[in-house]
């Protein structure tokens, strides 16, 4: 069995605001193997972005702070480091070098006052011993790899001269420049046109295959998940509610929330009167103390759901779900419910 590149255990990231302590990420665990694509799925505000920022050590502080858990990162040499415990200086050596990130908003994620070439070489010169000329050559090569035409010229242009899709390619070139072991992409295609989306996804898939870079893909788009991911973690209100390989999650979802997400996808083949939507809205983080956080919106809620907090239950090899429907304590009833829950 391969060791995971990244192994997050019991991560807790809270925001300390005037309105009180908000547990944006509450006891989240997951891992990513070498060369694997892990999807982290959930609605806006479920904590998936904060999870990725926590891994990168970029949670805005104040008000945010990681208050618990471990983030074990394995270097290509095999050495494992807990990123929560390393110094800021060490973190800056890892960040952008072994671990890189692409953000959601390509339009605002590049510094408007510096040329594209400079923004790519900046990281290269920080992490490698390349001189100016070598770094520039490498930057142009990276622009070519991510499919930017006239790479030489684009390197001397400013971000406002490029389209959104081009800028996202630049972001990818920048992130991949130092050959990271792990690439985190936070909704990389959300702000782009559908046709450009497909190109960007294809590019990331290609880089993942060719360079063996592990990819942590944050998205709310199950289509993207189906296209890209090997395994999926579904998050709801700061917690992991289900995880498994992509086939299981998409074909046989167990958690009522995952089922709802999949049902709310419009289908090309059927023309339904109304699109399905999960009733209600995501609860405000921290507003639910006891019980399952999805209980208020779940079609299968029973007493226990509001009284106790469910644990993440292993269902099969690599598949786990946080729901009492599958708790063996419920005895024979569990099976019935599970079939009810699944049948739609």
């Amino acid at each position, binding site marked *: 069995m391969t060791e995971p590149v990244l192994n997050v255990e019991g991560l807790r990231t809270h925001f300390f605001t005037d309105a009180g302590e908000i547990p944006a990420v509450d006891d989240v665990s997951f891992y990513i193997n070498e060369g694997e694509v892990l999807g982290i799925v959930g609605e806006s505000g479920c904590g998936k972005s904060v999870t990725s920022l926590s891994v990168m050590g970029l949670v805005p502080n104040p008000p945010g702070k990681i208050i618990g858990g471990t983030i074990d990162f394995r270097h290509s040499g095999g050495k494992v480091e807990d990123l929560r415990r390393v110094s800021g200086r060490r973190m800056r050596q890892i960040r*952008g070098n072994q671990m890189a990130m692409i*953000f959601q908003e390509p339009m605002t994620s590049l510094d408007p006052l510096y040329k594209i070439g400079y923004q790519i070489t900046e990281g290269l010169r920080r992490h490698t011993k390349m001189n100016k000329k070598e770094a520039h050559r490498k930057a142009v090569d990276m622009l070519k790899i991510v499919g930017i035409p006239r790479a030489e010229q684009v390197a001397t242009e400013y971000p406002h001269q490029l389209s959104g899709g081009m800028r996202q390619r630049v972001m990818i070139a920048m992130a991949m420049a130092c050959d990271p072991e792990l690439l985190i992409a936070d909704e990389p295609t959300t702000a782009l046109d559908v046709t450009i989306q497909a190109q960007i996804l294809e590019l990331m898939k290609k880089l993942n295959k060719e360079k063996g870079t592990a990819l942590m893909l944050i998205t709310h788009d199950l289509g993207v998940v189906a296209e890209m991911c090997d395994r999926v973690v579904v998050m709801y209100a700061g917690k992991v509610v289900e995880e498994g390989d992509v086939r299981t999650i998409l074909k046989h979802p167990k958690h009522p929330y995952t089922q709802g997400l999949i049902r709310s996808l419009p289908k090309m083949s059927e023309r339904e009167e109304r699109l399905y939507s999960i009733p209600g809205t995501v609860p405000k983080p921290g507003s639910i103390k006891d019980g399952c956080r999805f209980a208020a919106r779940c079609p299968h809620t029973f007493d226990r759901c509001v009284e106790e907090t469910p644990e993440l239950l292993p269902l099969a090899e690599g598949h786990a779900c946080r729901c009492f429907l599958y708790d063996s304590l419920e005895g024979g009833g569990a099976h019935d419910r599970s079939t009810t829950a699944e049948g739609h």
Partner: protein
Amino acid sequence: MLAYTIRRVLMLIPVLIGMSLITFSIIHLIPGNPAQTILGEQATPQAIEQLEEQLGLNEPYFVQYGEYMMSLLQGDLGQSLRTNADITNEMWPFLAATIELTLFAMIFAVVVGVNAGIISAWKQNSIFDYTSMLIALIGVSMPIFWLGLMQQWIFAQELGWFPAFGRGNPRDPVETVTYFYLVDTLLAGRPDQFFTSLGHLVLPGVALGTIPMAIIARMTRSSMLEVLRSDYIRTVEAKGIHHLSVVYRHGFKNAVIPVLTVVGLQTGTLLGGAILTETIFSWPGIGRYVYEAIGTRDYPVIQSGILVIAFMFVMINLIVDLLYSYIDPRIKY
């Protein structure tokens, strides 16, 4: 960039013409007969006639304006009524003194203000932030004559660190070439005198620079706070770049435009002659020169003073505008 610069310089022509029209008309805006007003109630008709002749007041307005412009273009500002000297020559030492003091004050204001603002924004809500913003608040609210007098009392009178008056040692003058004493003393090969002149700049410079410093610090802080929250700063951090580089190279460069605007306006204001500061510190600057001309109704000097100050203001605005487009590639008008 070059095309923009040329266009921007050409745009100055109407501004300069407007400026000259206004200064030209000052003498004609005096109620009644200008010559009479200048010479006073007891003036003889002969004297009035002579002055009208001297100032060309008998000619039609457009002829007068034409002559005024012709001499301006030749760098001739006319003669002082009081001393009969060429104003161009007479004014320069005063102007040089003001420019030297302003540059010193603004360098102090920018270096202290910008860094205080940057660190305050970077370490928002820290002790440093609170302290420097409190000082900035006191700085903008403090009357400059009070600050000047307090400085003289503490640093000149009590501690004796810096001289309180004048520009240099009058008993051991160096040859004046440029009338910038810091330059002249070096040209004369007198580093000791250079430091004397520098010492004379400290108190008036700090007094004059305090308000701009406070304004710059507050402007830098608010502009930086906005920039430091932006997506591209997070991108730079994600690259693992050192804090200082993140904050200064990417943060401050993006936050600099409003700061630059304030610096330009403040420099213009200071060049306009800080009469209070110049008076308190006996600084022979343009403000006092023009002020004395007002006292003696020396209209050509007043006209020239206003013209020169307005001209410098326009030039500073030009420099600021050119800097904008140099810093931000998106600014191309």
